């Protein structure tokens, strides 16, 4: 841990610099991360299912968005996803699906 102290100080400076920037990709990523975490109760932490539900991690964004659109439109048979998908805005769903698509399907 000691050996990285200088790096830590450097990254502190970076953090200070970027936190001031409203368009900080890290902040946007946190928003996506927080929204995606609302799905974890069923689809697993970071969309890696512990079984019995689909995994979402590593699935291409377009495939996820198409499924969610179909759930909302009532075109895809569902027990519950049609009701859940309607609770999020388009923008929120695209943040969520981009987040899951960007993850490794396997455990990191």
């Amino acid at each position, binding site marked *: 841990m000691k050996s990285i102290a200088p790096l830590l100080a450097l990254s502190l400076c970076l953090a200070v610099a970027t936190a001031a920037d409203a368009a900080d990709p890290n902040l946007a990523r946190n928003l996506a991360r927080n929204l995606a975490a*609302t799905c974890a109760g069923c689809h697993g932490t970071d969309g890696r299912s512990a079984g019995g539900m689909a995994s979402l991690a590593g699935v291409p964004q377009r495939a996820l968005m198409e499924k969610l659109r179909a759930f909302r439109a009532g075109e895809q048979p569902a027990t519950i996803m049609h009701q859940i998908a309607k609770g999020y805005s388009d923008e929120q769903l695209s943040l969520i699906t981009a987040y899951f698509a960007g993850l490794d399907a396997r455990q990191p």
Partner: protein
Amino acid sequence: MTHRRSLLKGLAAAAAATAVPASLFGCATATPRAKAHVVVVGGGFGGATAAKYLRMWSRGEVEVTLIERNTRFVSCPVSNLVLGGYRELADISVGYGNLGTHWGVRVITDDATAIDTAKRTVSTAHHGTLSYDRLVLSPGVDFIPNAVPGLEGNHDQIPHAWKAGPQTVLLRKQLEAMPDGGVFAIHIPKVPYRCPPGPYERACVVASHLRRSKRRSKILVLDSNPEIQSKKALFTKAFEGYKGLVEYVPNSELRAVDAASRTAELEFDRVRADVLNVIPPMRAGNIATRAGLSLVNGRWVEVDWLTMEAKGTPGVHVLGDALLAAPAMPKSGHMANQHAKVAAAAILNLLAGEAPNPAPVVMNTCYSFVDGQNVIHVASVHQFDAAKRQPMPVEGAGGVSAAANEVEGRHALAWAANIWADMLA
């Protein structure tokens, strides 16, 4: 290369997670500072999730201590299947070990005895006093003392089984010992109480068991409320399926109980049962009061929904059933898991000197068994309303099952496996 990138990302998170606002550090100074320390009191759906997510989202840069009195987590959701004989307690129990080995949470099996929010310390029965930068309180519920005359100290004769564990096993044993033709009475307190559909699910699951083994028995659902409080149409239908076995009695306020004869004194009636299950009126877990938090109506903690901090007590983030709920927000394990993530994100923001997320979202699902296999759900999504300063259910979203079905029976068990893993794996 990817390794280096993730290392740098980790360090950025490290910086973001430091307790002192980063601007206080001269950027030239390399003085490493002790990590921020978050103490979590209570290892249920809220507390365990908060502990894991604080470690995960800070990439290990925030120290987390979890204080929980039980050595294993026992799930209230699915515990009615134990009463019906469809599951054992071991099937709904998970150890805390992975929080330590996978996530580096320091887990202390102990009672939190006192909290000093001015000094920012938590006292424990056996592990001394711990200091914190921020506190997460996920105290669940405790029963209001003396709310039901005759009940105090008699939970062995009249189990509540509203905290899963030994009480669940006790009630199961009493049901097993009940003779054919016996009466099982469940008493439901006025809302709000933990797990709105839980009592009705309990009646159904036990009924499905008795229908097979003790056909002449009777289940009385004595509800203080004027009607079924969750999934009303679906539970009404389920009760009709148990005609002759389940009787639902609304407006049944409980005046007193007699433990020796297992009698419930209702406002207009007196019910002698072979097995009497009284779910007592409840409030925020006692540690909330001991922490000096003011309780609305003497019962629930009011929070700032952006950070989950208790009103009037910054630095103390409260989760789960102990809260004064926002509109249409149930006291459920799923909801506590969601509160925990809002709190974890906000704590990391606040430690880094950043503003918390201005638009948090939480969602809920409660699956209920109507027998050993068939399940119904209720779901809702709650978006933060800036004008009302609280989460509001999204209109047109959420809803209930069309009918009880086996597919959702499988989903309910998959939900349990996934949410237990989300907290504890």
